[in-house]
């Protein structure tokens, strides 16, 4: 257990917001075989990761620096994940690069290869028995190459391809990645784009720049992309300013993805929710009496979890993401349930229900140092805060609500933004943004209006094998941006 270290780390974290090592209970992104599979996981001692047909405990990852690589190692006790250090020339092809200027001239080709299935001398039984005898993945890959009658006849390019394929199967790699707006966005975009409204990382980045998000900003967001936008804004605020998630109607919007960010209490406390009615209301005392009390909230969070669990609770529900969560928590005492999942969104219940649970403050005596401290994100904005925003206005607005009628929404929300405040609206379709732009233009509420189409093309850059990625998404949606000005029908 690295809990002491974790405790220290957390305090340091509160300062720099940029921690370099994992800790127990920490949320991580695992990249298996160079992006083939992406898994969000929580590093508990009970957690495991399934690769192929086997489950591997994640405990060896606790306390390691982000960016570490792990592979499967076989010992007398069975196989487990172990950290390894790649050599600085990871590709056999690197030497080639030094020899040849361009694509290497090669005199081998595949003219003599005949398609049949007799090329591999090693049977699956042979491989299984090698495994039982404790052979490493690399050794199996080497044996497969040695026993391939066609490998020597292949071109270097094909040899490389063959080797990579076998390595992925028999010697998988796990890269431990820091969850960050960028990696979280990329992982969701790849595996479950609908959860984040297909908001691609370049579009998300543009939204943040266009809305001038930085320290001390008070940013109003309408986030129907699961909290990805909210988390990305909070990351840039670094514990200063506020990101206020607003919503129309009585129930707030889910922001579960925020939990993936490993935010400290400092950062989480800057993420608040408020209904649009509250934000424009005259003197509405509806908000609960002490929503800014972190202790009360932290306790509340724990209250709804089963009291006999032995792992830090406040972080657990994060992992219950149908699409991305693939980690098996083998701790039998703990069971996931829809109830616990809904707890991720404490504000989804009515303010009254919320106030009620606040009264249960302190009932949970769970002594885990991490969860005890952690303030959850997304508490209800205090009356005090709402009053300040009414007086001063938000500094900017970001809307990422692709399935909502943006036109009327934007004009309403813009009235809450101070003059000269920038705004950015993401949508799947050009048409609603064009209408919105036109209406803002005629109402004279805004200037510098512009619709952008984010565009991204990734390349593989490898010696003699550089090419655009085939599966880059051509669809990045559209962004309407502008600046609110004085006057106009909206003010």
């Amino acid at each position, binding site marked *: 257990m690295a809990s002491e270290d974790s405790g220290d780390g957390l305090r340091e974290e509160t300062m720099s917001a940029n921690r370099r090592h994992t800790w127990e209970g920490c949320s991580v992104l695992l990249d298996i075989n160079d992006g083939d599979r992406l898994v969000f996981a929580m590093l508990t001692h009970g957690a495991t990761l399934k690769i192929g047909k086997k489950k591997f405990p994640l405990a060896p990852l606790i306390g390691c620096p982000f960016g570490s690589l792990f592979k499967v190692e076989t010992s007398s006790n069975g196989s487990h994940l172990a950290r390894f250090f790649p050599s600085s020339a990871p590709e056999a092809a*690197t030497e080639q690069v030094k020899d040849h200027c361009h694509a290497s001239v090669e005199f081998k080709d595949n003219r003599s290869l005949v398609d049949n299935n007799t090329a591999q001398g090693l049977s699956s039984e042979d491989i299984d028995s090698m495994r039982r005898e404790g052979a490493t993945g690399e050794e199996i890959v080497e044996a497969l190459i040695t026993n391939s009658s066609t490998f020597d006849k292949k071109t270097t390019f094909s040899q490389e391809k063959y080797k990579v394929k076998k390595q992925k199967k028999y010697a998988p790699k796990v890269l431990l990645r820091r969850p960050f707006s960028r990696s979280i966005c990329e992982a969701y975009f790849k595996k479950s784009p609908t959860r984040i409204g297909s908001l691609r990382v370049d579009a998300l980045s*543009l939204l943040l720049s266009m809305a001038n998000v930085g*320290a*001390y900003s008070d940013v109003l967001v309408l986030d129907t992309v699961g909290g990805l936008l909210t988390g990305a804004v909070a990351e840039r605020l670094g514990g*200063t300013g506020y990101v206020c998630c607003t919503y129309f109607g009585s129930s707030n919007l889910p922001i579960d993805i925020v939990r993936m960010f490993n935010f400290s209490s400092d950062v989480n406390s800057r993420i608040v929710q408020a209904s649009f009615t509250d934000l424009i209301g005259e003197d509405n005392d509806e908000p609960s009496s002490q929503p800014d009390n972190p202790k009360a909230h932290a306790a509340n969070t724990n209250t709804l979890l089963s009291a006999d669990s032995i792992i830090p609770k406040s972080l657990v529900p994060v992992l219950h993401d149908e699409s991305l969560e693939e980690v098996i928590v083998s701790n039998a005492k703990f069971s996931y349930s829809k109830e616990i999942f809904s707890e991720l969104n404490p504000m989804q219940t009515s303010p009254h229900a919320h106030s009620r649970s606040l009264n249960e403050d302190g009932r949970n005596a769970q002594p885990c140092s991490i969860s005890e401290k952690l303030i959850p994100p997304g508490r209800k904005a205090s009356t005090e805060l709402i009053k300040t925003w009414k007086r001063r206005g938000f500094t900017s607005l970001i809307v990422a609500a692709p399935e909502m009628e943006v036109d009327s929404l934007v004009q309403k929300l813009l009235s809450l933004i101070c*003059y000269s405040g920038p705004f950015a609206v993401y949508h799947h379709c050009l048409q609603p943004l064009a209408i919105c732009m036109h209406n803002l233009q005629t109402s004279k509420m805004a200037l510098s209006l512009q619709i952008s189409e984010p565009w991204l093309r990734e390349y593989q850059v490898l010696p003699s094998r550089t090419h655009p990625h085939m599966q880059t998404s051509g669809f990045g949606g559209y962004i309407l941006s502008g600046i609110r*000005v*004085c006057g106009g029908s909206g003010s």
Partner: protein
Amino acid sequence: MISSDPSKRNSFERCISDGDLVIVYERHDSMKAVQVKIGSEFQNRYGAFKHADWIGKPFGSKVFSSKGGFVHLLFPTPELWTLSLNHRTQILYLADISFVISYLEIVPGCVVLESGTGSGSLTTSLGRAVAPSGHVYTFDFHEQRASLAREDFDRNGLGSLITVSVRDIQGEGFPDEFCGAVDSIFLDLPQPWLAVPSAARILKQDGILCSFSPCIEQVQRSCDSLRQNLLM
């Protein structure tokens, strides 16, 4: 542009006062950064605007010239600042700038290095991203360009967040004093691969390097160098 003092930040209560930097917005493709000074005048094709008339108005106001022409006065942001610059070098587009900031995983408190400084357009966005407690060190080998950038950052209020130095990073590498203290590095150099070994030395564990190049050959060569230098 960035301030921890709530009374300095833009809000409904904040009005333009003497000494403020404002962006005079003429059209979407034409704006100027102007320091407000009682007694001064701003002249453009729409006429002459007295600075004195601006004071006390909120940012975002429409103001008129003696001739009845008008402009809008905006609160400065890195984006507007970039649009108002007289470009001394080719600048990055907003889409690239925002992408770079995301890829560098910069949050408040980070220490970031940049070379070259160019017209300082990306630097301004880096400054916003590291504020209030981080710092940007930017290097350019061009003496004149560096001092113009320094003046700019003093004008736009980012001077305390950004240090501009004259140094040939391709030739000399980054200063050794940064060793192990740097979260992210951005390179916009003709031969970025020359700076990679030094960058690898001074980056923190899991620190990030981004390099921007117009041509694929530069990217190919940089990747070779990164593979050799940056992997643990």
